[in-house]
């Protein structure tokens, strides 16, 4: 198959490469760009391990052709930390045991990142709803939910105090 030139905006960098138009984004990230933090857990978008953010929205990279996402900002797990400073979600997952085998972790963190960006104080139900497309076989989700709540706590401490009108 004839290759096409693509320009991908990934983690704040522009990556130009030649790919076959039928290659899924997951494979291009993992094989061509060595961004192996994005994982493949199934073949049919049922597990969420391959989730990345496209313009801030979580999407399964196993369902997407890489050539279709040339003008959008793609964020993978490698783009979540600020240099050596871990994101509050990454700290939360480390502190609360949210990452056992770690294989679902990148997808979980990115999905939670999208949720907290929209809704910094989600209810338990909103949290469950947001993470319901990301499967984990280790944790029973209990420590994952605790990890996100820990991140909410860390983020709260960073936010300027809001003065409530009386």
């Amino acid at each position, binding site marked *: 198959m004839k290759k096409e030139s693509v320009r991908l905006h990934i983690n704040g960098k522009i990556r130009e490469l030649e790919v076959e138009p039928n290659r899924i984004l997951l494979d291009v990230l993992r094989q061509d760009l060595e961004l*192996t933090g994005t994982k493949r857990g199934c073949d*049919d978008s049922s597990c969420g391990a391959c989730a990345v953010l496209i313009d801030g929205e979580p999407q399964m990279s196993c369902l997407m052709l890489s050539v279709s996402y040339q003008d959008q900002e793609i964020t993978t797990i*490698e783009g979540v930390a600020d240099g050596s400073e871990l994101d509050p979600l990454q700290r939360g*997952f480390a502190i609360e*045991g949210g990452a056992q085998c770690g294989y679902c972790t990148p997808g979980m963190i990115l999905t939670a990142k999208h949720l907290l960006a929209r809704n910094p104080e989600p209810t338990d139900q909103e949290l*469950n709803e947001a993470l*319901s497309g990301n499967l984990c076989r280790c944790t029973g*989700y*209990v420590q994952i939910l605790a990890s996100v709540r820990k991140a909410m706590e860390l983020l709260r401490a960073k936010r300027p105090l809001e003065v409530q009108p009386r």
Partner: protein
Amino acid sequence: MSQPSNFPPHNGSAVGARIPMVDSVDKVTGAGKYADDLTLPGMLVGKILHSPHAHARIRSIDTSAAEQLPGVYAVATGRETPVKYGILPIGHDETIFAVDKVRYIGDNVAGLAADSEAIADEALRLIDVDYEILPGYFDPEKSMEAEQDLIHEDKPRNIEKEYHHHFGDVEAGFAAADYIRHDRFECAEVTHAALEPHSTLARFDSQGTLTVWSSTQVPYYLMKTLAATLQMPESKVRVIKPLVGGGFGGKSEVIPLELAAAVLARKAGHPVKITYSREEVFYAHRGRPRQTVELKTGVTREGKLTAVEARIVQDGGAFCGYGVVTILYSGQLLNAMYDIPNVKFDGYRVLTNKPACGAMRGHGTVNTRFAFEQQLNMIATVLGIDPVEIRRRNLLQAPCITVNGLRVLSYGLPECIDKVAGQSDWNEKYGKQRFGKGIGIAGSHYVSGAANPIIRAQMPHTTVNLSADEKGVVTIFTGASEIGQGSDTMQVQIVAAELGIPVDRVKIVAADTALTPVDLGSYSSRVTFMAGNAALDAARNLRQVIMAAAKKSTNAGNQLTFDDAARLAIGPNETLTAAGTYAPPKDAQGGKFKGAGVGPSPAYSYSAQVAEVTVDTETGEVRVDRITAAHDCGKAINPINVEGQVIGSVWMGLGQAVQEEMVWEGGRLMNPGLLEYRSASTHESPPIDPIIVESNDPEGPFGAKEAGEGSLAATIPAVAHAIYDAVGVWINTLPITPEKVLKALEEKKKTGVRS
């Protein structure tokens, strides 16, 4: 635990600390490498051709067209690699690729290596196999009637192995009983479905040394099997375990792709990586077999157990795998968490034309435990004894040796029962809630590693080496396999505690057969007890080495800090090293009867759980509202990780209880995907409250025992019991689907009898 500490005396502060796993940053940043993340220059894609037939003779295989396809480097079939292997010395019945015959849909017929996945797929289609189809066996009871076309010629009646155990005198025991109950239980087949699909990268270097990076729980056994099947010296085989994305037993024996990648790498002269698709993972299987349990239990009016008798049949699939061990565990741990004087067990491990079953979390014990605990709850109900109370009346008096020869030193079951009953408000809820809401209780136990190794060798089960260098860093070299359960972190905490140094001064090099000493692997929940004890032994020895060297330079003796002692000692010596080992004591190795080798462990964990459910009587749907789980892990080296293991076990048990099932049509799996298999999402996952019980085992490292598997088995009967409490029906077949609940409710309405 980062405060300065003395050396000696050690203060043990790193043990019991809720610290993040030592590899957690790698996992949360995506920097950590799993097998499929690795690449090598010139690496090829490996693929396996699987059998479309459940049972067939291979008349011929023509690979010539595939070999001639541009971009194909190697094609391999069974005749080239006929050496038989298997995880158990008595179960060497597999070959890398099928020789002359396929035994299940998905069996490995041929393998090839090509430049790209697309070429590999095309080449697979070009392999022409001529099959002569044989009758297939899919039901173990029918399979046992087979007289011809056996699955393995040396296994008459397709029975892999049968065991008949009798301890005490069951006839006398039943004669002494006031009430005897007979029930039949059926448990569906389930699988691990670790989120990381199996993956292996193999490379031969110019010296002929093979290096294999693989998603394995057992690097040491993999190294030995590679050497045996590729007919190479073990000294030329190196296995490296990168991060592993979950195992649960599914990576605890050698999986065909691990050998196929090596064979193809040798033939192609290039590195080869094979990664299974999710469907291939389901067919690789090695999960928990379908099992029927016919159970007869006798009890006095007061609820004291007098005898138990079980006939257990396991649908083992086409190869032995761990099967002999699985059937033995199902019998050996039938009685051993309670005081039952008379026990009879008839166990049959039967071959069928399906993927081989194997070890899965709670290996062999889970389905038997479901049957036993469910029946105990039925008995309590009939006798009008509170189900919590009936358990208290049948406790072991530890230390003791059970009737089947299992040595029990620490026994936290009574405390587990008390804790869950208390925390769940059992007395206020049991039998007292509205129709549709229920609460149930059950217990379970599990080994902390097998006291007898799989391979018959008189060597320690684990060796750990330590080195201390002039930077004040202590490095652990261990063969133990981190698979997400916290193996590395546990060893770091133990060494740091024993030496009285901060955990960030302890580094770990693990699971590389060229660099690290022998450890048998991450299975049977052996790592904390065995590798933990070896790490502790090594740390004690290192302390002595350092002190002895330091004393040559000073009279300060026991007042020295680790840093001072290390500086004094290492100064003239550059680095200091010490080794530690662990082997189970003789008196923990069990009895002398046939099959006695499986079941004995140096220590057993105990669990008690309370499940609370709401049953929708219109739809039959069971919603689990909460599970309270107390687990006796001896001592929590890292409480966060212990809680994570307990919660994860409970959750996996819950999946088996109410939704997971491998659905077969003949030899074809109808649900080989994570959605179809119904792995629970956040929506179906209830709050799970873990309670750590610390019985301080006298032989465990700092008192620690197993935490990663034992809780699973209690969840299923606790949920089933809660369903009975909610709506008055006992469901004896797993999984407990809405259909089964509705049917039972209809039966109950018709007969007016509580089944």
